[in-house]
């Protein structure tokens, strides 16, 4: 047994490298499309999404003396290392481990925000946010309303890694945005890469409403961009049009945006048609104007998300779009999503709304 430990640590360098390879092998359902446009002028550094999030939190801790960052295993950087080095930099009273209790983390964060601190809470995996559901839904979302505007916990941001990673199975893969999108008072935000992660996270932290910030964990390391080093924000409640066309509107968020960008590219190459691709970014409140203007222009709309079909956020979008754009629609709105089953381990390639399922749906829609 003694030899075992030493052997393990000797092997470490090699092992870590293998993990990277593994991730690649096990999850190749999308190609990453980096952002080329910078939200602000000035110096940039190459960062992956983990580093961009770290950078946003670093700026917050530096500039806001009330800010604290906490959660399970956050002291050593968190299991995805987004908080790496921040405890060393800002001290144990500002960046710290909590006991293993999500309801505690959320409630503690609400309390911090109520008393004037900026609270950045990490829930280790979105799949484990449900013990905190009561605190988020019944408390965070309703503090301002029920107190007649006297109290609020807008300074609370809950960050949590979400979505498919190639081998996460039931409890390391879920995309729970729709649960939170059902709750007036919350803001729900999903970035698609390093640049948006930094700008949107800084917005969430400063926003006067409590935010649930869902970070597609597969992007932490696989996505790298030239990220502006200075402080900048990206507005909440606004979608971004990433590619323009007139044949159809493709809407997604998080990792799925990249799937749709590839689908639009395939459609252009194979069918000679151009599509609007919209990254919704803010799930709640969401940008009806950008979405509806696009659908009025194209007359066709495909919505794709990893979460199951039934009561997924696509349902809300589809209902609003048909209400607002009814006379412009040339085909039924199409939803390509995870199936109505828990997220399965070895069946992940069959479960995801991958480019081929999206592409097939798009062709059917175009030929309707």
């Amino acid at each position, binding site marked *: 047994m003694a030899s075992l430990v030493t052997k393990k640590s000797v092997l470490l360098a090699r092992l870590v490298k293998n993990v990277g390879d593994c991730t690649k092998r096990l999850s190749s359902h999308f190609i990453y499309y980096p952002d080329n446009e910078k939200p602000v002028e000035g110096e940039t550094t190459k960062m992956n999404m983990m580093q961009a999030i770290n950078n946003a939190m670093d700026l917050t801790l530096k500039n806001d003396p009330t800010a604290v960052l906490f959660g399970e295993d956050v002291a050593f950087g968190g299991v995805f290392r987004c908080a790496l080095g921040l405890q060393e930099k800002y001290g144990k009273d500002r960046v710290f*481990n909590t006991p293993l*209790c999500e309801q505690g983390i959320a409630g503690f964060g609400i309390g911090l925000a109520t008393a004037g601190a900026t609270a950045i809470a990490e829930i280790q995996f979105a799949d484990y946010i449900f*013990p905190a559901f009561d605190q988020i839904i019944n408390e965070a979302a309703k503090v301002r309303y029920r107190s007649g505007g006297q109290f609020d916990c807008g300074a609370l941001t809950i960050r949590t890694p979400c979505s498919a990673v190639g081998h*996460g199975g*039931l*409890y390391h893969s879920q995309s729970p945005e729709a649960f939170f999108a059902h709750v007036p008072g919350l803001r729900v935000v999903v970035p698609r890469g390093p640049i948006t992660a930094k700008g949107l996270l800084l917005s969430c932290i400063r926003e006067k409403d409590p935010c649930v910030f869902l970070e597609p964990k597969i992007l932490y390391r696989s996505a790298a961009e030239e990220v502006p080093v200075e402080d900048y924000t990206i507005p909440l409640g606004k979608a971004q049009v990433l590619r323009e066309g007139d044949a159809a509107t493709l809407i997604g968020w998080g990792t799925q945006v990249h799937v749709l960008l590839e689908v639009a590219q395939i459609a252009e190459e194979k069918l000679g048609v151009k599509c609007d691709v919209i990254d919704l970014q803010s799930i709640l409140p969401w940008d009806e104007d950008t979405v509806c203007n696009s659908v009025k222009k194209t007359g066709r709309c495909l919505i794709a998300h990893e979460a199951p079909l039934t009561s997924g956020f696509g349902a809300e979008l589809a209902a609003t779009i048909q209400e607002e754009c009814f006379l412009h629609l040339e085909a039924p709105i199409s939803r390509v999503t995870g199936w109505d089953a828990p997220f399965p381990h070895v069946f992940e390639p*069959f479960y995801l709304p991958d480019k081929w399922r999206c592409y097939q749906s798009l062709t059917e829609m175009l030929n309707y």
Partner: protein
Amino acid sequence: MALKTGASVLRLNTLRNAAVRYVERVLQLLSTHTRPEVAQNTKYAEFPGAKAPYVTEMKFLNESSYDPIPIYRVLDNSGSVLESREEPSIDKDELVNMYKTMVQLTQMDKILYESQRQGRISFYMTNYGEEGIHVGSAAALSPRDLVFAQYREVGVFLYRGVTVTELINQCYGNHEDPGKGRQMPVHYGNKHFNLVTLSSPLATQMPQAVGAAYALKRQPNNDRCVICYFGDGAASEGDAFAAFNFAATLDCPVILLCRNNGYAISTPTNEQYRGDGIASRGPALGIRTVRVDGTDALAVYNAVKQSREYAIANNKPVLIEAMSYRVGHHSTSDDSTAYRSIEEIQKWTTDESPLHKFKMYLEAKGIWDAEAEKTCLKESRDTVVRTMQEAEKKKRPHWKEMLEDVYYDMPPRIQKQMKQMEEHLKKYPDKYPLDQHQD
């Protein structure tokens, strides 16, 4: 939990001097309810929430008001029985079986851990340092007792009779995995052996175990109990408190066994809780409690055996805190050198190794020797390697298994989705790993 007043310290010392001989004595000690010194003619309050004496001196209690809860053990570090009356009477074959199970477990951990590193399976968690808790508890239970585990208790599964083949099939998610490839590796379960299938969210199994114990209690002539394993980290979840409180108030025959291995991923226990560990919560909630040395399989065995008898005879819960150390990394996703030193780990792989102690115990009894060790190691390793090679050849389940078992009867909406996928796969067969799955 003896309150540190003059009287109780004395009492403790007397007990100590008499060298606590029986687990029973330890249990008695822990459940001893000593009160602060109270003036004579004290009036007792009759509040519905507490029957306690009135006092005129205000006294706050804190963690140092109590002596640390002692750690019961049978073997010392060299495998010698400390107090002969404490040596359980386990027959020779069972003792050997206990040890062989530990060896098998270690070999499985070693090889599967490496296989994850080579990309053969997607994830793994080792059990190093906690083998004694697994076999000690499993051997003391009836095979019919229902087990709710966390994830680091695979030795219990092996001891019950789950084969290495079945466990490895689960890790590979092939068509012989009883869980049909749906969960990540190490999420085992086996209905036949009364091992409830694991789930990743922590502590959720705890109130469930208590509910199951309530159901057993209501069955005529019940002779079964439930055992629930959980970590020191999981014990911080709201569900853990719920489980303790429900078990006590609803009188459930359940053994709540905490594996306190010092860490929850990177979080050491001194950041997980204050106070005297998990055990101190038992008496506070009205639960009979004992703390044992989890590196000593015989101590665990004695504690679980007595707890089981007590739970079933009285329809009451028991809390056991088994102290140990998580020798391996948390999982294949973790590198524990980021938060602890190699030196810290080392101590627990030598002096305090549960395998080492138990082996020396068997050797002293003359029922194990170097030859037996060599054969056992080889057989265990070969079993794992052979099984892995076989598991790798087996295909994954048919893709349609992805949509089965969501409901008892598949609703029309899911039937429709299955049809859609079927049509889609006809159009795009080469875009999916159909060849890796059964047809």
